[in-house]
């Protein structure tokens, strides 16, 4: 091992080329990316870990490797799935520019992590995962064990292939890819939002399944409030609670506070027999 390293150190720079295996190693290591997540520099150590196969291949002296490692130990934080593109791009820049591209690589990473985090969070964590999990939960509540399994499989088909494609496309098409995707992202986001909104709308009646057992007495006549509500519009309570939560979110309430408020409302209204 050390003999090979010594030989490589004196090799001409024309040999500096990543193999497909190196890129696959980056893809594989992405699956342990955040295992050292910390407050000081978030994903920085993980970034160095994922790029290690690339650094091994391209840099051979202690000084070169030190410089490459240090630039990836700078603060970094973004959403993991979309970060695959940044890994691919970084690999391409490491190969093409090497340590002379030190600031360019650092700048590219710092510039992309913010916008990509927004895209990744909204596509993966706020759209695709909750859709899969709500579908699975609906099945689970019917006692169907396929629920968790289906949710897991559906989610990962998209998630894993996005990571693989991201690394490969990021490396092979680099900057061109990002400028081309800029137009496409909007279309993908719109389509994802439409599907998400319709599916959520259709899940509200069954998954926010509250009704009211309250009754009004008019003389001898007893009328169920639920019956009245249903004649106005079925599922008005589930819709009402959903829009109420939406309104609180728009007013910058934190999710935890909303959970606590909704639990408090449930406790009080159930105690008065107004909700069931």
């Amino acid at each position, binding site marked *: 091992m050390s003999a090979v390293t010594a030989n490589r150190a004196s090799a001409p720079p024309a040999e500096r080329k990543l193999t497909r295996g190196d890129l696959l190693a980056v893809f594989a290591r992405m699956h*342990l990316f*955040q*295992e050292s*997540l910390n*407050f*000081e520099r978030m994903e*920085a*150590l993980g970034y*160095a870990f994922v790029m*290690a196969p690339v650094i091994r291949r391209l840099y051979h*002296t202690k000084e070169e490797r*030190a410089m490459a*490692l*240090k630039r990836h130990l700078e603060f970094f934080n973004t959403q993991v*799935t979309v970060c695959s593109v940044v890994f691919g791009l970084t690999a391409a820049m490491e190969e093409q520019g090497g340590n002379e591209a030190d600031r360019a690589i650092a700048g590219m990473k710092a510039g992309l992590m913010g916008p990509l985090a927004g895209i990744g*969070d909204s596509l993966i964590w*706020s*759209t695709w995962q*909750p859709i899969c*999990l709500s579908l699975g*939960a*609906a099945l*689970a*509540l019917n*006692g169907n064990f396929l*629920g*968790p399994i289906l949710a*897991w499989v559906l*989610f*990962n088909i998209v*998630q894993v292939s996005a990571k693989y494609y991201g690394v490969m496309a990021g490396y092979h098409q680099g900057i061109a890819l990002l400028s081309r995707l800029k*137009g496409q992202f909007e279309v993908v986001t719109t389509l*994802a*939002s*439409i599907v*998400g*909104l*319709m*599916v*959520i*709308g*259709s899940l*509200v009646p*069954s*998954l*926010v*399944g509250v009704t009211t057992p309250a009754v009004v007495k008019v003389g001898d006549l007893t009328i169920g409030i639920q019956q009245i509500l249903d004649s106005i519009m*079925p*599922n008005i309570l589930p819709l009402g609670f959903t829009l109420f*939560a939406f309104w609180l979110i728009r007013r910058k309430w934190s*999710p*935890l506070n909303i*959970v606590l408020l*909704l639990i408090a409302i*449930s406790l009080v*209204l*159930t*105690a008065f027999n107004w*909700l*069931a």
Partner: protein
Amino acid sequence: MLGAAIVLGLLAVLAIWDLWGPQSSLFAPLITGALTGVILGDPATGLAVAGTLQLMWLGLVSIGAAMPPDTITGAIVGTAFAIITGQGVSAGIAVGLPAAVIGQMMQNLSMTVLSLWMHRADRYAEQGDIRAVELCHLSGMLVYALSRFLPVFLAVYLGAGPVERLLNSIPAWVIDGLTVSGKVVPALGFGLLLSLMVNKRLWPFFAIGFVLASIVKVPTLLVGILAVAIGIVYIQLTPRESGSQGQSE
């Protein structure tokens, strides 16, 4: 209970490694809860609690740098107590949320401890020692493993008696209220999704989905297919605003 506590603790370790690793969603309450049910030999209750907690906590995902309550600890401990105490979903909700808050504290503690790791990694990087930097990163898995094994193990091993007594002392109206809250709180998850996806032009799609399911009762999967179809038509019919292809569109 010792054996179950150890196995559930290990399930929590797998889940936290998944959350900070492959992110396959093994960490989601739906899946950790269902597996807890299988481990404790009551898959039916496991599924019911898992489904309920999943919907209640749909909104508690980590976005950006802030750490939400830890749904791994919450779902495993909550489901375990729902089964062990025999009180089902309401016990799962009652125990799950405080357990999730303890898990959140463990997460914050881990991220503080792991900040110290960075300075060791800096030293190894200075020496160009790739292997040492890699090991430094991987050793974070030990910290995260402990951070979830300990609370889950201790809660299940020590807590069964006291927690059961506590749950038994809870009045009936609280238990009923918690069961109802399992139907109300999913509204938050949907509200959060709405707030992220909706803009003035897209509101109608939410309305279409709601009406389809509440009046015509179309199965969700068909709603999904219909949504893709409508979405594609919508995109084709929408003129691009200052599109990337210049003024020609």
